[in-house]
């Protein structure tokens, strides 16, 4: 590399802590969220270990309740929600648009520090009594239990604003900082996905803020809105909570879909099939996501009329999701499919997300949801969407942009071994949970009926395979950082703007302002590409 990159132009801790560079903030976010994922993963392993036997295995019921609460809260608020937008998105969104930075760099740094503050508050709960409410904080349990609930509600409030700031930045950046020639329909689909995500972040997160604030005030002052003893309605809390937390599912999955929309055309060397359909379906999902939250409440005492409406609207979300999947598959048709790590994870995403999405039909449908609600079926379903979907897409994106972020190629061979282990481990862990769930094993159970033990053992063993795969992933990625920089500017042959600059990029992203004169997936004719492959080999 000739010129200094964003990694080397300035050195020292201060140059990182006070940076306004979106790439450095993205990298700081990346390491922080990965640390959170590691913590959440350790907690998950503890949960699986405890469930190896029907009664006590290694911890008491109180500890177990705190562990699963923290696992959920850490994974959702500290990992999945910020991982793709704030870590990968921060890094690549301005590059994809040909911008020098996001619109509000200081707000971006503020977002990161709010994240750190919120994370520290949430983790401080571990040493100040723990929290055993479940990540859903349902009242009146959450208003009557002891522990560090107050601290965690405030942490969630702070984390919410961190997320809002990211969303504000992305929308303003997309509107105002596109490079010359970058019309809306020349934007890479990742940008469309981020844009749709940002809409939800801005519109839904404030309601989470007021919900946890009211919960906090309920605990401190006894406000009375959610407390039946004071004339309040605990079911209203569920409306407040899910008004945010269901759209939040799309804050998580839309960025995952956005990554897949980048990876599949590049590694199939095909223009994406149905660009507009995918772009609009992202925005459609963002819109409809606000109309479906009540499907978490079919057995909660919500009225029959509300349940019926919410069920119907829920099914409408299935359509844009299905459209996306079919478009991705069709993109591969007559392509030149290059099975490198990002593509392997993208195909894994297609398979796992298909299961996650299709099992959602069981839960959106009223009669079957009554039986399956709050069982392991739900646990398996959302892990297929959140982990099989979002996390696998995150891995696809991480492998895709890793050379760009750090200027190093990782070991392709180890990445295949790891991917195979992750795939086998994941399915072993969670397919067993589908079966348990439909047979009537409730979630959040510390003790369980002995008849479920074989399936729990399978699930726990699966979690070990999964963990092994992830440890290997961490190993070869970290090992690549010890090498000398060896990544070419465009290792995958992508046509989007981030590949037009060096790897890693210079501080101001581009030496000259790029001018866009083609679509994001207008690859050169295939013959030339095949020739290129021959030369590289």
């Amino acid at each position, binding site marked *: 590399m000739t010129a200094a990159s964003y990694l080397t132009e300035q050195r020292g801790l201060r140059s990182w802590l006070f940076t306004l560079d979106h790439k450095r903030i993205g990298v700081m976010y990346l390491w922080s969220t990965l640390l959170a994922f590691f913590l959440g993963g350790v907690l998950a392993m503890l949960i699986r270990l405890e469930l190896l036997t029907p009664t006590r295995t290694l911890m008491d019921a109180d500890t177990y309740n705190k562990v699963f609460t923290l696992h959920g809260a850490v994974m959702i608020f500290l990992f999945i929600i910020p991982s793709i937008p704030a870590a990968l998105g921060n890094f690549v969104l301005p590059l994809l648009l040909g911008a020098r930075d996001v619109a509000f760099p200081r707000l971006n740094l503020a977002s990161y520090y709010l994240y750190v503050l919120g994370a520290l508050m949430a983790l401080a709960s571990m040493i100040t009594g723990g929290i055993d409410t479940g990540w859903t904080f349902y009242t009146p349990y959450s208003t009557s239990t002891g522990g560090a609930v107050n601290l965690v509600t405030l942490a969630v409030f702070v984390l919410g604003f961190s997320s809002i700031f990211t969303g504000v930045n992305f929308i303003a950046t997309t509107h105002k900082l596109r490079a010359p020639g970058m019309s809306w329909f020349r934007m890479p689909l990742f940008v469309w996905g981020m844009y749709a995500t940002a809409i939800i972040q801005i519109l839904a997160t404030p309601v989470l803020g007021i919900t946890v604030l009211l919960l906090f005030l309920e605990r401190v002052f006894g406000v009375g809105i959610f407390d039946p003893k004071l004339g309040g309605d605990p079911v209203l809390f569920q409306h407040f909570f899910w008004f945010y937390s269901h759209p939040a599912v799309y804050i998580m999955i839309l960025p995952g879909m956005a990554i897949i929309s980048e990876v599949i055309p590049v590694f199939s060397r095909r223009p994406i099939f*149905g660009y507009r359909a995918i772009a609009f379906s992202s925005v459609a999902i963002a819109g409809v996501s606000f109309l479906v939250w009540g499907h978490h409440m079919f057995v909660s005492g919500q009225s029959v009329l509300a349940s019926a409406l919410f069920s119907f609207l829920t099914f409408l979300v299935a359509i844009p999701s299905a459209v996306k999947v079919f478009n991705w598959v069709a993109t591969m048709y007559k392509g030149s499919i290059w099975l490198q790590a990002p593509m392997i994870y993208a195909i894994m995403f297609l398979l796992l997300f298909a299961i996650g999405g299709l099992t959602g039909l069981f839960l959106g449908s009223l009669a079957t949801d009554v039986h399956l609600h709050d069982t392991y079926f739900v646990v398996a379903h959302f892990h297929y969407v959140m982990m099989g979907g979002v996390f696998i897409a995150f891995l696809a994106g991480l492998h895709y942009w890793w050379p760009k972020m750090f200027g190093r190629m990782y070991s392709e061979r180890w990445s295949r071994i790891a991917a195979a282990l992750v795939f086998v481990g994941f399915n072993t862990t969670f397919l067993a949970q589908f079966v348990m769930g439909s047979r009537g094993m409730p979630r959040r159970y510390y003790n369980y009926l002995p008849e479920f033990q074989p399936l729990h053992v399978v699930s726990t063993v699966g979690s070990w395979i999964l963990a092994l795969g992830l440890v290997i992933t961490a190993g070869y990625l970290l090992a690549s950082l010890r090498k000398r920089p060896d990544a070419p500017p465009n290792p995958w042959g992508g046509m989007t703007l981030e590949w037009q600059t060096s790897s890693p990029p210079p501080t101001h992203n581009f030496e000259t302002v790029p001018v866009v004169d083609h679509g994001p997936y207008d690859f050169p004719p295939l013959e030339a590409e095949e020739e290129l492959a021959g030369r590289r080999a």
Partner: protein
Amino acid sequence: MDWLRNLLMPPRGSTFADQVDPLFWFLVGLTAFFFLLIAGLCGWFILRYRRGRAVRRGVAPTHNTALELVWSLIPLALVIVIFFWGFHGYISAAVPPADALEIKVLAKRWLWQFEYPSGLRTVNDLRVPVGKPVKLVMISEDVIHSFYVPSFRIKHDVLPSRYTQVWFEATEPGVHRLLCTEYCGRGHSDMLGTIQVVSAEEYQKWLDSGGGLGEGLPPAELGRLIYTQYGCEVCHSLDGTRKEGPSFRGIFGKPVLLTGGQTVIADENYIRESILNPQAKIVAGYQPVMPTFQGLLNERQINALIEFIKEQK
């Protein structure tokens, strides 16, 4: 196919099973079909159009309006069918027949209490006649619980703020499991009960005998029965393990330190008071969470429980 049915679904115990299960199996089939379709296409494309493989690729279209309409409209039609199918089952579960037998349910951490029209009360043990609609009117004393009977395919939250209801009609005599499915704290996974479906005559006989719990049993044996059936075991262990409440092991006749510093001897009167008025004296280090059993246990049953506790040396 029976093995598959037993693998994925619990036994069928109520009329709802016949409404829920066909939809469930339809969805299983749909999931399998679309998953195999997607996986098959992916596999085929990967094999056929692998990079470097000499194959005629030509120019693939970047969109195809007709195709895109087809794969939007077919799922749309399918989900509309699923919606109405699911709605149908849900509505019939939401509206109990007018002649349903009404039983009141009180949920509290961590037990289920049932009150029959005759005034009889039981704990964690619901007995219902076969082939007759039963409506449960439920309320909680503390936090939200959820009444779940997998083999009946019914579930409904039990709220502390207002009554909710659920109904079912059991199809044959047998025993079914009742679980709590709304997380309610330490004893959540122990908040279990049984539902015994018996013939109409047997049900009537049982009601007339006042529940007939443990007749003819010696007091300590009856005490053991009450200990399990009334949910004492959820909070009080027999082997010294610390649970929500103090263990019964070796407490009888011993001094007990209370919150506030005073000490009492755990004699018959103390135990009796703790059963009927649990908040009167709280053992140091424990929370005042125990519900009262006033009106739930008669004198004979209380004495039996005391005898049982005496034996836990």
